[in-house]
């Protein structure tokens, strides 16, 4: 995509491209401190895809924004370490971050409509970063933008560059946001629910495109999604979040075959399937996640967990290793272990679960 005239190059490092250590992000509100992200750690190796899954409100978006350093200005505290290519992002001054954003690190925001500027033609929204970061001329940038729109499946791209966001459908806006995020060829792409509003065919096309970019440019990706099914075939590793914390983390295949955390198991179970007849009642996870400004003691999933025992309400389970070292989970009575089976049996006998 044209000659690269980068303002700065990322220093190659031997370690992981991204290291996140004990990241916390709290919002001060009238009703107390909302602990949206509460001590999250992970690493991402260059060229790999890490998926972050978890239910609505579990902190996935705040985590990604916090990694980027793109949080609201007021009433936020952010603690912990975020290192990108050896650079400390938490302490970095704003102007340094600005050079990274859109160029080395790009983000696809979850809400496509509000992340586009409603009064600026989409052509300009895409070409701006190409001209600023890559130093393309106006016509180079236009050609690149046209190619980008075509690659995300938008018909008659030359014409549509002159359109405003409201003239596109929801899914088209989403694809435009993706096109502008990948425009400058970032090293790291954080994609927050990049395909939620898209049908399978278009979603697959977009994910294929991202995967191709990964191979071509060694791009690393964080794929945020509420859909475990979607990320199953598209990620190397998966992190499961619950109430601001990581509750299970493993290579994708391991997570699916050796699920340990009851919450992960429940997530895997409630998806509607094409093979079921219509109007089947879908299994849900009973109850609601805890109030993020008032977490209970012990395991945060305890009030909804089919395996829960008295210990769960008292002691918070730490992350501990599973059968393979890359697998960690936080649970006292893990799925697929004698301990877990016993706990489940006990609850069943007591009539706690159906």
């Amino acid at each position, binding site marked *: 995509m044209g000659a690269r005239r980068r303002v700065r190059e990322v220093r190659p490092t031997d370690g992981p491209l991204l290291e996140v250590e004990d990241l916390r992000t709290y919002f001060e509100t009238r009703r107390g401190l909302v602990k949206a992200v509460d001590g999250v750690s992970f690493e991402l190796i260059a060229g790999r895809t890490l998926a972050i899954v978890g*239910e609505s409100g579990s902190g996935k978006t705040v985590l990604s924004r916090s990694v980027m350093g793109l949080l609201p200005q007021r009433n936020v505290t952010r603690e912990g370490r975020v290192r990108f290519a050896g650079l400390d992002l938490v302490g970095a001054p704003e102007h340094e971050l600005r050079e990274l954003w859109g160029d080395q690190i790009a983000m696809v925001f979850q809400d496509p409509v509000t992340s586009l500027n409603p009064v600026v033609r989409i052509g300009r929204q895409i070409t701006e970063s190409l001209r600023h970061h890559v130093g393309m001329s106006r016509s180079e940038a236009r050609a690149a933008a046209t190619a980008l729109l075509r690659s995300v499946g938008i018909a008659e791209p030359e014409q549509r560059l002159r359109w405003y966001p409201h003239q596109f459908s929801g899914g088209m806006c989403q694809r435009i946001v993706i096109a502008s995020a990948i425009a400058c060829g970032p090293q790291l792409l954080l994609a927050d*629910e990049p395909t*939620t509003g898209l049908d399978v065919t278009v979603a697959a096309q977009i994910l294929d495109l991202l995967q191709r970019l990964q191979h071509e440019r060694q791009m690393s990706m964080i794929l945020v999604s509420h859909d475990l099914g979607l990320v199953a075939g598209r990620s190397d590793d998966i992190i499961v979040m619950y109430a601001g914390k990581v509750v299970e983390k493993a290579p994708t295949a391991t997570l699916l075959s050796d699920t340990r955390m009851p919450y992960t198991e429940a997530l895997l179970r409630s998806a*509607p*399937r094409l093979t079921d007849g219509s109007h089947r009642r879908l299994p849900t996870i009973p109850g609601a996640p805890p*109030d993020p400004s008032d977490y209970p003691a012990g395991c945060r999933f305890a009030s909804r967990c089919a395996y829960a025992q008295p210990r769960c309400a008292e002691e918070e389970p730490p992350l501990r290793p599973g059968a393979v070292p890359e697998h960690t989970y936080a649970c006292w009575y893990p799925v697929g272990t004698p301990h877990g089976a016993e706990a489940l049996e006990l609850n069943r006998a007591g009539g706690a679960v159906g």
Partner: protein
Amino acid sequence: MAGSGVAQLREPSAALIRVEDLVVDFPLPGRRKVHAVSGVSFDVYPGETLGLVGESGCGKSTTGRAVLQLPRPTSGKVIFDQVDLTKLGGEELRQKRTELQVIFQDPISSLYPRRTVSDLVTEPLSIWGIGTRSEREDRARAMLAEVNMDYDAVGWRRPYEFSIGQCQRISIARALMLNPRLVVCDEPVSALDVSVQAQIINLLQDMKRRHGLTLVFISHDLSVVKNVSDRVMVMFLGKVCEVASADRLYTEPAHPYTRALMLASIGASKALVGGGGVKMMPNPETDAEKQTEMPSSITPPSGCRYRTRCPHAEKICAEVEPVTRRVGDDHYVACHFPIGAPLSEDARQLAADGGGAGSAAGRAGG
């Protein structure tokens, strides 16, 4: 006018909503226009759910919004409870709003950022002066609980303090506050994880049973649509491809585009659930969609709008637009060469005249 046919329409007096030959064009500079919806017809009986599927940009939201006259369609009728909404003035239309609700696709921009959740959810009641303040609050509390949110914990907060899925649930609660008769849900569960999604779907089913709620349910997710819908309508580039009962559409799709959609979904869900039990097997020879550029709604293809991608397309598909016709029990398709069903009248005519549609015979079965 190039309609896509009305064969799928049923008894007018029994329908709660009946849309006839709906057209929505958006003008562009230079006397061009976007043909977003081009002659769509459907009806929904009281208590029924119509699922609306089709790929991104095919006109689902535009159709849903046109039902509510947002904006008013270019032409066509929208008959709600025997009244044509396209003929109503602003105030009369406003009166209907209590019975007709929409859950917009974009949850964030449909909620005023400065109001509290409590205001947003009770507002439909306060606008119409329904109940006392505490009654309204009780109802809001109950409704929010139905979407798995705690009124006491969230009522005082504002939309920007919520995740997208939480905003989506707030707008669902808001839309259901007035016990509407018809709700157009535009991707109501797309941002939700499976568990909350299941909860909302179950809630809609309950409301349907208890209050006879009628739904137009727009979604790109075929398994969700199958679960909630009685009937499903498949759209492609502003046109109707196929209408059928949910179970039938999924086992015997007749339109090549529907089939392509099903196969893609099965492929996608295989990664996780093994895809077991689905009878449909892809046939590499007859199922490969043509890899061409996306057809455009500014200059749509002549004849059948799917023809540039359709593996079964023949000459007639470029010349004569297929219209919907009945091919089975509650099953309608707009295609000259449907899968497992007889040729269209036009195609038959042409074949009889020796006009090249001869290879159609080997096409059935799938």
